[in-house]
């Protein structure tokens, strides 16, 4: 089952993008190999939707972090070896031998470099095996009890033990006979194992990369729970993973209290907090570490966010229409019984206040009825909150503003209730504008 999300969500949370500064992909991308990078991207594109898968991946990363293993492998031999693997499958040793003779004769006759390249690639393949062997040795040396990486590790050792290359020297040039033997081994007899080896190495690359980020940034691991538990999401001291000096907040959503109504001034940190929630939720579903003291969550089917929708006056109505259509598509998924995490920042801000009030209230009230989904809705329209006070499944939080010498300051501590900040009027009064006008 595919995890449900969309482009805007990925953009809001700044998840993907190798060339985008501050993207989560970049944050975790310390992989050494090209294939590892592709695998990391695939993990970002397809979060997991089963408890076992999530917990086992996060356990693997946690284990690799604990034993503190590094991944020492250059990308270049791997690429060369991959090139080698694209070669045609010889039917047997004799065919390989004949093929090698042909390459050699071509080299003598008209200085073809294919034989040299072939030798180079053969050497790269041997290097890969040697590095894989070192990695396996390290894994076994550092092995501890309850090894969560056991299955991946034993697959690695199986491949290495099965392919009989131990007696070959790494140094070129190889004789024609040796070259043919390699061909027979790598491209014919053990082709599948060799291909498997690459996948295993990529996986180690990604997991070790993520583990090293977790160590450096002191990240921790969220725990996925069964679908039928009452708690939807719970976190202590949750921060945005890429913001190093963020202020942590605690947070809990359950079936009975499944909607957070968030208020606060523009700069008070609403959007950042919503992004923190979205990113942590997403990473947790990938089995990746998050920045919190503790987090448990129920596995859900998808996430939708509307944060930072640019308030372009020129786009005006079309912007509002686009927003309505987005709410509609989310409403459709929700009413189809999908279990989703939905974050809406300043819903319907493109329209007049009366409309925004009515629309926000009507939509929020209804969403709150979907007990298997979790919602966070932020707004400037405090009055909506007052109208929602009697809706039992809504909890109220705000990001406070403190006035210090008539300048606003922000604590970034999530506080219970609806904001009563009137710093707007306070500033106007402090500046004595109405008195000036007389």
């Amino acid at each position, binding site marked *: 089952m595919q995890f449900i999300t969309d482009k805007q969500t990925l953009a809001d949370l700044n998840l993907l993008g190798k060339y985008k500064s501050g993207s989560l992909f970049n944050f975790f991308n310390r992989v050494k190999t090209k294939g590892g990078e592709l695998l990391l991207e695939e993990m970002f594109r397809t979060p997991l939707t089963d408890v076992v898968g999530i917990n086992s991946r996060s356990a693997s990363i946690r284990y690799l972090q604990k034993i503190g293993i590094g991944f020492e492998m250059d990308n270049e031999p791997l690429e060369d070896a991959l090139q080698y693997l694209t070669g045609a499958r010889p039917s047997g040793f004799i065919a390989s031998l004949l093929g090698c003779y042909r390459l050699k004769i071509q080299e003598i006759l008209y200085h073809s470099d294919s034989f040299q390249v072939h030798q180079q690639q053969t050497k790269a393949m041997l290097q890969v095996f040697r590095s894989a062997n070192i990695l396996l040795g390290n894994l076994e040396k550092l092995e501890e009890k309850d090894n969560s990486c056991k299955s991946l590790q034993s697959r690695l050792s199986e491949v290495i033990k099965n392919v009989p290359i131990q007696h070959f020297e790494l140094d070129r040039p190889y004789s024609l006979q040796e070259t043919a033997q390699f061909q027979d081994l790598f491209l014919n007899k053990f082709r599948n194992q060799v291909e498997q080896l690459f996948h295993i190495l990529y996986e180690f690359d990604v997991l070790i990369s993520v583990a090293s980020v977790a160590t450096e940034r002191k990240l921790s691991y969220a725990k996925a729970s069964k679908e039928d538990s009452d708690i939807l999401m719970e976190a202590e001291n949750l921060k945005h993973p890429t913001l190093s000096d963020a202020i942590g907040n605690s947070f809990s959503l359950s079936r009975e209290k499944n909607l957070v109504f968030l*208020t606060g*001034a*523009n*700069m008070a940190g609403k*959007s950042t907090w919503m992004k923190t929630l979205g990113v942590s939720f997403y990473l947790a579903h990938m089995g990746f570490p998050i920045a919190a003291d503790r987090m448990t969550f129920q596995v859900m089917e998808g996430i939708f966010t509307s944060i*930072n929708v640019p*308030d372009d*006056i020129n786009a*005006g*109505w079309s912007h*509002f*229409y686009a927003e*309505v*259509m987005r*709410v*509609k598509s989310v*409403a*459709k998924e*929700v*009413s*189809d*019984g999908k279990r989703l995490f939905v974050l809406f920042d300043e819903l*319907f801000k*493109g*329209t*007049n*206040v*009366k*409309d*925004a009030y*009515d*629309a926000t209230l*009507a*939509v929020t009230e*209804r*969403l709150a*009825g*979907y007990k298997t989904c979790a919602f966070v809705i932020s707004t*400037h*329209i*405090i*009055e909506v909150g007052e109208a929602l006070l009697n809706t039992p499944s809504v909890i109220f939080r705000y990001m406070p*503003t403190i006035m210090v010498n008539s*300048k*606003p300051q922000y604590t970034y501590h999530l506080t219970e209730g609806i*904001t009563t*900040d*009137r*710093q*707007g*009027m306070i*500033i*106007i009064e402090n*500046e*004595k*504008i*109405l008195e*000036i*006008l*007389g």
Partner: protein
Amino acid sequence: MKYLLTDEQTIADLSIFDKPGKTSIYTIFNKTKTQGGAHRLEMIFKNPWADASSINRHAALYQFFSQKEFVYPVDPITIGIIAFYLENDDVRTQIKPESESFGEKIRNMVSIDAERQLIEDGVQACLRVFYQLNIFLQQEDSIAAESPYYEQFRRLEQIVYHDSFNGLREAMNKDDRKLDTIRLAEFDKRLRFDHREFVLQLLELLYDLDVYIAVGQVARNRKFCFAKALADRENFLHLHQVFHPALEQPIANNLDMDREGNLIFLTGANMAGKSTLMKSIGLSLYLGHMGFPVPAENMEFAVRDGIFTNINLADSLSAGASHFYAEVLRVKEIAKTLQSGKRLFVVFDELFRGTNVKDAYDGTIELTRAFCRKKESQFIISTHIMEAGEVLLKENLSIQYLYLPTIMEGNHPKYTRVLKTGITDDRQGMIIINNEGILQMLDNGLKKQKELCNL
């Protein structure tokens, strides 16, 4: 002479000067031919007047040029050459006929040096201008004494026909032959040193003429009208069929303001054209204070001491509160100027939109109340908060309530862009939400879930 008070924000709001990707008002008017003329135009745009006599005098001048189709009498490149030529007032560069040795003569024949070439070009350019002006002055000699350009025309005449330039007017040779050194030296001395002041004045007059012709041409081609500035009326603005000059198919509106309606409370949907309307009004008033033609059919206005607008404030999220604070400080500055007794024209587009709704509501009501007590000034305030208007409506203040309507055609809103009296009651937001059936969809989903539970 008094100048209009304004600031950078206002000039940016009204897009007076160029910004990438936007047609500026300066560009619309800049049909000048010379660089000096363009510079003169820019100075005029930077310093509108604030007294009725200056305004009306200039307006009359531009109007005169809009009615009579003048062709700029001299060619612009020539003017540029003269300006450059005159910049060099170093006596050592003066050409001396007597000192030319035989060797120098030979050298000049073989390859003329650059400095001498420039001087020669300059002198030739002056000869051309005198020749062309001679023709122009004779052609237009019948200019009426009551014409607004009469004075400057006579001044032009005085310089061109001044005794010190005798022999210059006829000296231009059509086949562009080189002047002999003796004549060149004599002309150079007269133009660049002895009567330098006259030539500089002549250039100034030509730059002015360039601007007049350009502005007149724009007024004629674009069918702009000339506004009448009123000195004796205290608070008055009459705009008939005002439109925005940068739009291809603008829609015109009418507007009247006076003491008993000195504040316009403007509402309407985002796309309905509030900002454009406010810009075209602000712009007409700004141009009116320059004496320039305005994009309207008819306009009369009481002269203001200043124009301030708050349109197009970039509502960037990261700016947040500091932005709001800056906005408040600007309001404070304007309030102080008002308090000092200045008669202003002020536009506020969606004041306090950075803050929460309750604050914006309170702030808008308080400020609107305070503003409309300033009977000598004029205000336009636009807002999304219609409720503020409903509260103010009960108080019998000097407010005109206007709105730009939205008409729903099926699911798509249409905008007439024509002002109507009242406060908008557009609810297209909810209409769209209802049309899309979002609420119903959510209700049905909930019902289904309950049924499943019961089973």
